[in-house]
């Protein structure tokens, strides 16, 4: 061994160029992966649960599992003899108006989930013909107002959350992240991108905003649809999609502002939602998240509630510019259904869910889905 160690002549050979390139590429790949992991961790911290100690204790409950179990239970077929008393009890408890039901025979609803997702008689929800914007759902108005120049949406008086965190921002995916996203949710068909923006990246300097009275800040910044990013989107056949509204068209028009309204659907309310105006839906972002209660009590207690919960962000345009509708799930109604997007699957188990909480999977509608005021768009289903 000593002879080998001492006597062996060391011969140096140049590494083949291809091996050197492969080595550098691998090191670069590791570097990108480390950076993405760091971004994910940071993002998870940004959308962390905030509130008093009992909110944190509540956060430890396996709400997603409870929600799915609740859904399973409510999809069990109810014996015929039990249907009428069960649904009548539910209606009394939660104040359902049974006279508005399209099919008044309670025995025709095989389970509570079907009763919960009942349809209404034609004509019982007349549309206001003059209003530019009508309510998309039956419910209670929790809050409404103007979005501030800091792009904060008020959850309750004095407590706000970030508009960017609610709607999501798009970033240019890199070679290491996109294939993962594509493999992550194949049922979605056209998975485009997974947001991994850190909080610091979301902050746009104040000089990008004009005075709130003459708002002309760039919605491209809010949506992240910066030049170059749009080419990453693909249609169902994998062809790149051009987004006509992804750039200059998303500038707020002079004299316009951003508004918001939050409508809460109580358990007894009709749980389908309709188009609030004439608009076209260009893309959908499915945010994974928790399924905390969104009752007025929870809204008052849990900060960032609408940013934490699983939601479907529908983005598009109406006659005055940008338009967005966001159904937010909750423990008892974690399943969000969008009629024109049958591939969407919400309230999946942790095993099935491939994108971490706070991130989203995006789908482009090509061509955009045109909706008329009052058109049924989807609904919330039990569990």
């Amino acid at each position, binding site marked *: 061994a000593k002879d080998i160690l001492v006597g062996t002549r060391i011969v140096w050979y140049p590494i083949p160029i291809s091996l050197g390139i492969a080595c550098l590429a691998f090191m670069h790949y590791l570097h990108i992966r480390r950076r993405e992991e760091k971004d994910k961790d940071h993002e998870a911290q940004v959308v962390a649960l905030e509130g008093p100690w009992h909110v944190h204790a509540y956060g430890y409950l396996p709400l997603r599992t409870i929600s799915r179990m609740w859904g399973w239970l409510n999809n069990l077929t109810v014996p015929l003899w039990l249907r009428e008393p069960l649904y009548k009890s539910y209606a009394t408890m939660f104040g359902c108006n049974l006279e508005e039901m399209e099919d008044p025979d309670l025995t025709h609803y095989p389970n509570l989930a079907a009763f919960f997702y009942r349809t209404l008689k034609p004509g019982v929800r007349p549309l206001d013909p003059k209003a530019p*914007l009508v309510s998309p759902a039956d419910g209670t108005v929790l809050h409404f107002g103007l979005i501030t120049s800091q792009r904060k949406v008020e959850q309750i008086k004095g407590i706000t959350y970030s508009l960017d965190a609610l709607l999501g921002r798009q970033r240019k995916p890199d070679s290491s992240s996109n294939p993962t996203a594509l493999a992550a949710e194949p049922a979605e068909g056209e998975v485009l991108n997974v947001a991994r923006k850190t909080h610091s990246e979301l902050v746009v300097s104040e000089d990008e905003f004009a005075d709130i009275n003459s708002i002309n800040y760039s919605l491209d910044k809010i949506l992240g649809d910066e030049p170059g990013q749009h080419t990453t989107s693909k249609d169902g056949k994998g062809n790149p999609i051009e987004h006509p509204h992804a750039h200059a068209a998303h500038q707020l028009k002079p004299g*316009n502002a951003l508004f918001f309204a939050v409508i809460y*659907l109580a358990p007894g309310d009709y749980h389908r939602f309709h188009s609030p105006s004439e608009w076209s839906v260009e893309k959908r972002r499915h945010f994974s998240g928790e399924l905390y209660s969104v009752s007025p009590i929870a809204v008052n207690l849990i900060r960032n509630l609408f940013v934490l919960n699983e939601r479907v962000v529908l983005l598009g345009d109406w006659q005055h510019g940008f338009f967005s509708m966001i159904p937010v799930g909750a423990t008892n109604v974690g399943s969000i259904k969008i009629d024109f997007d049958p591939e969407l699957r919400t309230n999946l188990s942790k095993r099935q869910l491939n994108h971490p909480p706070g991130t989203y999977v995006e789908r482009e509608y090509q061509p955009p889905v045109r909706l008329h005021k009052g058109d049924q768009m989807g609904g919330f289903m039990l569990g």
Partner: protein
Amino acid sequence: STVVLVFEAPTEFEFMLEAGQKVKVGQAIGKL
């Protein structure tokens, strides 16, 4: 469950709502 609307509109847009108010599908929630 909750539905959140975020939209661009002229600054003259006025909500016809009050916090806590019950609304129904199709009911006007704002005017210009």
